[in-house]
């Protein structure tokens, strides 16, 4: 089961069309009026989260449990010549040592059949690659034992940058360092488009490597009972990620592995696959006959669990005097690090605006650095960074309002797929966002010429995912006392999936929220759900939940109609009984009704229906920023942000606002402070900790942060009318901040992040002329 992310580039190229399937049950209609859906409801698991009761993988302690530690290569590029574990094996508390030579540990890794590496590969292609592992009674003994393992390395020359493309560069693979063929997306004829343009601009842009920096590290606890394995894993996907991955690695049937993840401390794309640590824990547990916990130290999460790759982009744009785009041409060169992973950034260039002529060409090279992984809207903040700064440049050149320019090129038809969107709120996001922000007034106000300058900027964006699709299964079960339990293998990685699922079931069945409970993410008991990624959990799962609840209702109504002798439309569920709407004295306890039909519960199995054919389903947004730039120190302060986002129906105001606050803040970090720094001399990461790697704090976020929720009343996209939000809320923020900086000081920070030194250099350059 390959995940959506892996296929994204593929689908980008082929502009795929979902196979038309059986149409959704005709009888489920969009809700006309809702009781609960649309309100702001606190989380159903709030108590556990604020009281410390929520149990994370890091908190799991089992009787007799051992602690694993993993030895990592300290060099950017090296061959392991020999490993001597004999001293480590004799250390106090050490019960097992594992290396590539250990039975069952010689496993292919990274890239399925055409694996590029091994669980413990002797060829270490970046700092931090796994070399050996130990299990000991305490984490401290395990860490001490690592230091006793003697490894002889042959260090190799390394390469970190585009020099990797040169024939003389150190090679990561026999076949050279190029990552496949360049990926081309072509529409119309750009040469002709540029010829038709009144203004043509070209600029190069760069975005740095951003780290996921989840608050809970990656980790797993493994326990064997005979031939059955249980893994508690900090993951975004108990099924696609851990279960299927572990079954493949260990060559085991799916039902012999149980994967559980009730609470996890953040993923953002870095926890979509089974980790080496999970398999190492499983192997060590098998070897010792005891449960083993492998939590990664913070530093290791920076070195080995993924990142958003850098992008070197050149964008050329042609536009007519009236603002009509005629052509867009993008090249992008990037590196996924040492192993294959998506690096494409071009989707929005080909999709966001109406433009007949587009050429996107992207290529990649391998380098001796930690591998890229999907990171919240992979490729999109980077692609947005160049596209939306270019739009700002065009607006300046044309003397046009930036909002106006975007409205001018607004489209209701997917440009890459040439089918209409089920809905697009982009126009409304631009209009309502600008109004709520006070855009026109702000831009018109006179600027100070003191050392601290103020500026305003905006940017639009869209996300290629957010549609959701089958397969997803939600089991909705009604107890005879009227209580409901939902079961699903879908994850709640903090986004509020559980809360929203309960709301939707309560809405459909007309019961109070308190009557609904949810159990999720346990492959032994909950039905299949995809990994949480692509902003597809909500639009994937929630229609299935509604369907399951609807099926329960249909069953109840049918039995109720029969028992009460009234038409089904007249039957309603009231607490632990069913009754007639028109004749309130006609009612029957649920238990009686169900027993009479030979059951003690009613179960509805909701499967996710296919999406409508020949339609595109995408979420949109427009973000606005106000900044202060200190021209003496180069410091930038974001004083105000506004996110106007459209993601279909707003099911829970609170979750909606939260995603927008959080998504924008993470992109603010991308804009201003976050970047991986590799030492040119050694190829090692110098800021692999939360001190030197800067994620935004409470003092870096704006004092005013506003959210505008645009609801397009989409009745087509799925049974609930919702699209995904987590990623679109994250995409245009950095570009809006960059445009605001330009507005403030008249220099364009094309290279991110926009650190004080970058701003000062640009200002100095401008002064020199």
């Amino acid at each position, binding site marked *: 089961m390959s995940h959506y992310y892996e296929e994204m580039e593929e689908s980008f190229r082929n502009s795929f069309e979902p196979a038309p399937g059986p149409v959704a049950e005709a009888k489920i209609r969009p809700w006309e009026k809702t009781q609960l859906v649309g309100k702001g409801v606190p989380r159903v698991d709030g108590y556990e989260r604020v009281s410390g009761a929520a149990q994370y993988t890091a908190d799991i302690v089992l009787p007799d449990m051992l602690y694993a530690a993993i030895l990592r290569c300290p060099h950017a590029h090296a061959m392991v010549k020999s490993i001597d574990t004999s001293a480590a094996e004799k250390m106090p508390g050490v019960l097992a040592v594992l290396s590539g030579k250990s039975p069952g540990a010689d496993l292919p890794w990274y890239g399925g059949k055409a694996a590029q590496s091994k669980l413990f590969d002797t060829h270490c292609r970046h700092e931090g690659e796994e070399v050996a592992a130990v299990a000991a009674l305490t984490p401290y003994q395990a860490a001490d034992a690592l230091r006793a393992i003697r490894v002889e390395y042959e260090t190799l020359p390394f390469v970190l940058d585009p020099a990797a493309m040169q024939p003389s560069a150190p090679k990561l693979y026999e076949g050279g360092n190029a990552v496949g063929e360049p990926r081309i997306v072509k529409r119309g004829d750009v040469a002709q488009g540029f010829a038709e343009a009144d203004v043509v601009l070209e600029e190069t842009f760069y975005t740095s490597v951003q780290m996921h920096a989840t608050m809970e*590290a990656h980790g797993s606890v493994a326990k064997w009972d005979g031939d059955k394995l249980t893994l508690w894993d900090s993951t975004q996907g108990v099924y696609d990620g851990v279960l299927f991955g572990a079954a493949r690695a260990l060559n085991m049937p799916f039902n012999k592995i149980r994967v559980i993840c009730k609470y996890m401390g953040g993923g953002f794309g870095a926890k979509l696959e089974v980790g080496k640590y999970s398999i190492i824990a499983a192997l060590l547990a098998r070897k010792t006959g005891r449960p083993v916990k492998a939590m990664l130290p913070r530093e290791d999460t920076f070195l080995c669990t993924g990142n958003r790759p850098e992008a070197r982009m050149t964008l050329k744009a042609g536009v007519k005097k009236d603002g009509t785009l005629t052509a867009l041409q993008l090249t992008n060169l990037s590196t996924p690090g040492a192993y294959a992973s998506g690096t494409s950034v071009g989707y929005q260039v080909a999709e966001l605006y109406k433009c007949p002529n587009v050429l996107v060409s992207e290529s990649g090279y391998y380098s001796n650095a930690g591998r890229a992984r999907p990171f919240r809207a992979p490729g999109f903040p980077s692609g947005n960074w160049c596209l939306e700064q270019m739009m700002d440049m065009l607006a300046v050149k044309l003397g046009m309002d930036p909002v106006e320019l975007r409205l001018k090129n607004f489209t209701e038809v997917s440009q890459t797929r040439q089918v209409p969107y089920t809905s697009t709120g982009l126009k409304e996001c631009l209009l309502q966002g600008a109004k709520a922000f006070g855009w026109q007034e702000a831009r018109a106000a006179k600027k100070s010429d003191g050392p601290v300058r103020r500026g305003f900027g905006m940017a639009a964006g869209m996300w290629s995912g957010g549609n959701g699709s089958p397969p997803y299964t939600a089991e909705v079960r009604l107890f005879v006392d009227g209580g409901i339990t939902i079961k699903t293998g879908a994850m709640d990685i903090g986004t509020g999936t559980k809360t929203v699922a309960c709301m939707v079931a309560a809405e459909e069945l007309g019961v109070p929220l308190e009557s609904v409970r949810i159990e999720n993410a346990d492959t032994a008991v909950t039905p299949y759900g995809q990994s949480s990624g692509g902003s597809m959990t909500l639009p994937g799962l929630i229609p299935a939940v509604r369907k399951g609840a609807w099926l329960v209702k249909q069953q109840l109504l049918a039995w109720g109609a029969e028992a009460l002798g009234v038409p089904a439309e007249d039957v309603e569920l009231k607490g632990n009984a069913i009754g007639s709407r028109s004749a309130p004295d006609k009612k029957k306890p649920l238990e009686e009704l169900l027993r009479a039909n030979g059951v003690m519960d009613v179960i509805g199995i909701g499967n996710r229906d296919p999406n409508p054919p020949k339609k595109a389903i995408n979420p949109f947004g427009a973000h606005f920023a106000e900044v202060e730039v200190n021209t003496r120190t180069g410091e930038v302060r974001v004083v105000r942000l506004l996110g106007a986002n459209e993601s279909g129906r707003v099911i829970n105001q609170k979750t909606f606002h939260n995603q927008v606050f959080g998504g924008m803040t993470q992109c603010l970090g991308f804009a201003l402070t976050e970047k991986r720094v590799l030492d040119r001399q050694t190829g090692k990461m110098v800021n692999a900790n939360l001190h030197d790697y800067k994620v935004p704090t409470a003092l870096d976020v704006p004092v005013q942060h506003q959210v505008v929720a645009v609801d397009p009343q989409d009745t087509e996209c799925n049974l609930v009318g919702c699209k995904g939000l987590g990623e679109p809320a994250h995409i245009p923020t950095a570009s809006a901040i960059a445009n605001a900086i330009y507005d403030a000081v008249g220099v364009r920070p094309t290279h991110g992040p926009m650190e004080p030194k970058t701003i000062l250099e640009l200002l100095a350059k401008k002064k020199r002329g």
Partner: protein
Amino acid sequence: MPSTISFLLGRKPVTIDFCGSAAWSPAWTLLQYLRSLPDRKGTKEGCGQGDCGACTVVLAEPDREGRLKYSAVNSCLLFLPMVHGRQVLTVEDLKFPDGSLHPVQQAMIDHYGSQCGFCTPGVVMTLFALFKQKPHASAAEIRSALAGNLCRCTGYQPIFRAAQQCLALSGPERESSEEGSTLAELNSIPPAEWEWTGKSEIYCRPKSLEQALEMIGRNPTLSPVHGATDLSLQVHLKHNPPPGILDLSAIPELRASRQEKEELILGSGMSLSDVAGHVRRTHPALEEMLQRFGSAQIRNVATLGGNVGTASPIGDALPALMAYGAAVELKSLAGSRTVPLSDFILGYRRTGIAPGEIIAAVRLPFPPPGARIRAYKVSRRHDVDISTVNGAFRLQLDSDGRIREARLVFGGMSPFTRRAAGAEQALLGKEWSRAAAEEAAARLQEDFQPISDVRGSAGFRRQVAANLLLKFWSDTRSGQAP
């Protein structure tokens, strides 16, 4: 000698005897201890080095007025013996016996202050300390208090709203009924002094200054420690423990301050938040700098003595202290001596401390009327970040407006914090004008040869240093408040 500590863990008295226990050594952190307990898993580890706040717990102890004072601290940095005589409160302690939530926790639910939830226990504890200590905190104070709690999910806005909701609550707080008995229990724990020798480490915990001097006199290889925010990283992160630890955190004399005619005398063991409170009116530039020092959790335990003792080239208190003309009071069995700070800092993380000596106090003269003093810090992120460049500047003008005395102190520009002699010279006798500031800024290029590192390039440092002088000029030019 015994090596026992006693404290309250929530409402439960706990005693640990390091001699009798194979499991715990005194150099363990409070976090390691808490996470080894079955019922205290709410306190999380996100980084183990003071940067994320996931491990935040609250320490309560009697203050000078005999009331309970609550401070949020990073449990990952605190050596376990430092909780002796205090109450340790973790997220599990907040809910009421009937299981209902504390107003802080309820507000976090109401405002959706938690997404993945991993940062949440730490955030809750920071808010709890604020709820207890600063019920009327302003929006800016709320943000500042929370700056040491990283949250990767929520964007903080929901947490700010939660803070506002719970801080707006007035009326009797339900805990106060218990505070009396907590105080009584804490007061009944006698101060403990001991020396503990493990397999490879020594941990000494004197309860008086004399004892401390005696211990270090006997064994000069001991490293004195107050807040351990620096030393604990050496032990737990760099795996490079000193031969022995002399824990000064239990010595009341070192945590006290006193005022004399010409100067303030600040005990080396005063926490930076305590110091900030003391110098607010008299030394505002120092106070401002301390506000940007680490996070609230760090400021609650890190000390002035520790910052001076570290002698880091980017130690944030140092430039301001030097600008105010601070001196260091050193004590040993042989007696006591006072050295100007600028003579005490000798090189990269190197001071003029002699074997057997400890820093007892920092003497901080009151600035003369009319002195223009400012301190600045430039870092990549506003808070919880060490400086790329910091600086503190002081000018004294003659009655005719000419510069009589100039002190320009910079950190981050050379291996240690020091004055810019050339630039200072350039200012003497001049009027305080933009041209004078520019000339001094130009002279900085000869005063310093900064290096490039993760935090900034040499060129950037040079430029920022020069610009800070211009900023100083525009902040203090005539017509502005001195």
